[in-house]
């Protein structure tokens, strides 16, 4: 499976779910394949997409909240995954696309081989092996991204 095939698989599983996407290539991929107002592209703040999902799920138990992370981002805030295991929020789903690399900085290896992500709450891991070029940069401005996403709730 390639990175883009994994992203496509996640997007194909969605109907009206709220989606928080990590920094790096994955946000760009989602924007290119299927932009929607229910998507929040968290450019920067590596590792913090998942805890944003926690804050959403705690406050919206009736909505499905989906977070899409890479292995590098998940490793950067492993403690938040432990928090997710502790809270066990039923409406929160985490997809991790694991290529074992920091793709957007030149493909340096991560230490993802040192952890089993599937041990974490409601987590699905896609192991991807092939390198694909980056999708174009997101053309929305950050304030527009935030206001559009918030309008889905309030």
């Amino acid at each position, binding site marked *: 499976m390639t990175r883009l095939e994994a992203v496509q698989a996640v997007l194909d599983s969605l109907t009206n779910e709220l989606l928080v996407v990590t920094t790096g290539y994955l946000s760009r991929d989602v924007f290119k394949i299927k932009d929607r107002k229910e998507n*929040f592209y*968290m*450019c*920067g*703040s*590596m*590792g*913090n*997409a*998942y*805890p*944003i*999902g*926690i*804050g*959403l*799920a*705690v*406050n*919206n138990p009736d909505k499905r909240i989906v977070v899409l992370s890479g292995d590098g981002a998940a490793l950067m*805030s492993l*403690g*938040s995954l*432990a*928090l997710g295991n502790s*809270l066990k929020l039923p409406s929160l789903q985490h997809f991790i696309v694991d290529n074992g690399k920091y793709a957007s900085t030149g493909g340096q290896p991560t230490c993802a081989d040192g952890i089993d992500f599937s041990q974490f709450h409601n987590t699905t891991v896609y192991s991807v092996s092939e390198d694909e070029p980056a999708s174009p940069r997101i053309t929305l401005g*950050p*304030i527009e*991204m*935030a206001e559009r*996403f*918030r309008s889905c*709730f*309030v």
Partner: protein
Amino acid sequence: MTYDECRAKGYDFIVGVPCSCFKQFIVDLQSDTAMSYIAANREDTAVAVAVGAYFSGKKPLVFLQNSGLGHVVNIVSSLLIPYNIPIDFLISVRKEPFEHTHMYKITKDIVSLLEIDSQVYLIDSSSHS
């Protein structure tokens, strides 16, 4: 700021990392069944959880000790400021013992550099041991 003062300011979602000077604050908020509280394990995680609450229409407050201020520099700079997400902070300021002394000196400057001055309540607990 006491917990009652915090409630009076309208915060309806609280997330934070403990400090010894928040002991009573945390006892009070945990006994308030009307309050949503998440005990976070790192300060940037706390801010991110608060961002999720903000998107949900809540008025969140993040509490932390100033020793953890360094952990929020990135999320403030790359998320709160560019995306224009207002998150308020309650920060305890420790001075002693020695491991707190330098951060004590630079806390106000860091808050100022992060341009979150207007959203921060500093609690001077410099004599706290």
